[in-house]
């Protein structure tokens, strides 16, 4: 690190070496945002996290194994909470995405994530599911509806001024509507016993069913653990939202802009920045940032995820109580039959309003998932492309981002069209590609736990490194995702489902 010289002499910039890439210059850490009254990127991540895992997959497991299985969900979401805090630690300390952090380990690690993101998320299964709900409800053909949904996503992202602001607003509004609406349906159809069972089951630590360790169920249990909370690469994209929110050292990095804001775009620096962790005043500010992140992650992310899954478990138990046919459909696990069955059961109990509302919520879940994923995927890949393919820097980060958005829309449209024409096997893609996606999704989650252990324990200055609890949780995460994947393949010969 260079030292400061006497006034009047040229002053060398102080830098901190972190891994293989360019050292990070030191800048003052901005004052932290206040928690409680200010929502953050945790909401965007929560909106992505609350998907089919919480609304369908885990309620199904409860129907099959009883509410005591929910302790696994609690473990899975709590591991994800720690992952989220550690992702934020890196992003706020450096202003860099975790992809850049991976490159500081070795660029091949970063390129692995680049390729994985495209492979996992190019198939628009979420918006397709939402469109299928609307077809069931109103007879709208699902393929053009889904394509319309994708184009709408592209247009919203393209014509925003500051993209992150629009993303946070849209996702927060939709997750709010989802929580409000599903609470109303639960209010109409549920009973106290359902809630009591669900909550007590959440703390049934140590409950094990022998059936979990069979070829039929082990891959599903591991897959469900991976889908408790954010799955796949969603947590990694959180670091980019933090940067665009201006959290921590992200304050010094410009934000991605849509077409309406391109004239105000600033040049993206070649790397992030860090602060002087030896300065007590800087460390006081750092504690404030960690507190803000703690609220964002603990209250908003963990709280909303737990509340939503309790609600949907209550809804599933209610549907099963109202209609045994719905119970069988839920246990069988085919969402194409389960969703209409649950909706019909809610209609019997809560009136036509409840039935219609449930279909609409599934449509909302599907669309907002694709909205968040398309933004995040484009954002992540733009980040890696801009920084590590120098020839692309003749374009701005925002233009590269918009290009990726429309590549995703075009690819998704092509897939949906091929499925609609019957050329592709099913709406989610050919079987061998599905198997690869299942493998990659669990693998990448284990991989990012290991990346975080290296970036946060080895590259960050000592005073910024995580403590023992976080370290153990990251190791546990790596064991669950990678170990579970290995056992699924080696022992049961199946991929996580």
């Amino acid at each position, binding site marked *: 690190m260079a030292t400061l010289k006497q006034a009047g002499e040229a002053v060398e910039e102080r830098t901190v070496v972190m891994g293989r890439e360019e050292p990070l210059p030191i800048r003052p850490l901005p004052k932290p945002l206040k928690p409680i009254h200010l*929502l953050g990127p945790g909401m965007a991540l929560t909106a992505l996290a609350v998907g089919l895992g919480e609304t369908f997959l885990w309620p199904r497991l409860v129907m099959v194994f009883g509410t005591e299985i929910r302790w696994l969900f609690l473990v899975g979401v709590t591991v994800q909470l720690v992952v989220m805090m550690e992702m934020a630690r890196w992003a706020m300390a450096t202003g860099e995405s975790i992809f850049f952090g991976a490159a500081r380990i070795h660029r091949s690690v970063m390129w692995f994530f680049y390729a994985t993101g495209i492979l996992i998320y190019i198939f628009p299964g979420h918006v397709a599911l939402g469109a299928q709900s609307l077809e*069931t409800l109103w007879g709208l053909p699902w393929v053009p509806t889904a394509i319309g949904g994708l184009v709408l996503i592209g247009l919203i992202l393209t014509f925003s001024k500051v993209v992150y602001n629009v993303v946070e607003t849209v996702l*927060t*509004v939709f997750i709010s509507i989802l929580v409000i609406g599903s*609470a109303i349906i639960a*209010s109409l159809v549920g009973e106290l016993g359902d809630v009591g069972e669900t909550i007590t089951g959440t703390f049934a630590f140590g409950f094990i069913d022998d059936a979990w360790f069979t070829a039929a169920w082990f891959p599903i249990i591991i897959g469900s653990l991976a889908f408790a909370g954010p799955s796949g690469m969603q947590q990694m994209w959180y670091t980019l939202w933090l940067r665009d929110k201006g959290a921590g050292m992200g304050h010094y990095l410009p934000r991605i802009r849509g077409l309406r804001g391109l004239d105000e775009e600033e040049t993206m620096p070649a790397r992030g920045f860090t602060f002087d962790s030896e300065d007590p005043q800087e460390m006081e500010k750092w504690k404030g940032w960690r507190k803000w992140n703690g609220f964002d992650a603990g209250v908003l992310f963990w709280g*909303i995820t737990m*509340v939503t899954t309790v609600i949907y478990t209550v809804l599933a138990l209610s549907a099963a109580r109202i209609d045994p046919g719905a119970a069988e459909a839920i246990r069988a696990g085919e969402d*194409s039959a389960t969703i209409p069955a649950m909706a019909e059961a809610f209609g019997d109990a809560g*009136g036509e309003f409840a039935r219609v509302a449930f279909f609409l919520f599934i449509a909302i879940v599907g669309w907002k998932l694709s909205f968040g994923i398309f933004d995040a995927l484009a954002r992540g890949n733009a980040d890696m492309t801009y920084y590590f393919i120098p020839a692309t820097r003749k374009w701005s980060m925002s233009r590269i981002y918009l290009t990726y958005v429309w590549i995703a829309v075009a690819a998704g449209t092509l897939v949906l069209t091929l499925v609609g024409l019957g050329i592709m096997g099913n709406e989610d893609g050919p079987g061998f590609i599905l198997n690869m996606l299942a493998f990659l999704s669990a693998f990448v989650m284990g991989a990012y736990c290991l990346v975080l252990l290296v970036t946060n324990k080895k590259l960050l200055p000592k005073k910024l490194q995580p403590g023992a609890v976080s370290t153990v949780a990251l190791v546990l995460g790596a064991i669950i995702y990678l170990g579970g994947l290995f056992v699924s393949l080696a022992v049961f010969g199946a991929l996580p489902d």
Partner: protein
Amino acid sequence: MAALTASAGGLAGSLPGIVALTLTLVVAGATFGWLVDSERLTGGFGSGILFWTAALPVARVAQEMMVGEGIPDGVMAFVVYQALVGGAFGLGFLLLQNQVSTLLLNVRTKRASAHGGRVDA
């Protein structure tokens, strides 16, 4: 995915229930707004969730009295359950309210800037 046709039963049958519940929730929401504006409540997440923990059971009982089958048997269990769901409802309500308030404030600020004025939060 097999396409199923929508049920023959329309929303019309649910209309009284929808109207009654909407009415009671709007009254509760307006009450919350008045309590915050008059500084009887802070408007933060904690007080907001507590408010709806109390308000949703009242709204649902009122709805049942107006258009439903009256207060159900096991009224305590009903009220406790509605209170728990009210907490969840309150969380969603506060998130939405926070977002809408921020959007409205931004619009007002832009308009005021355009006219050279200032807007207080």
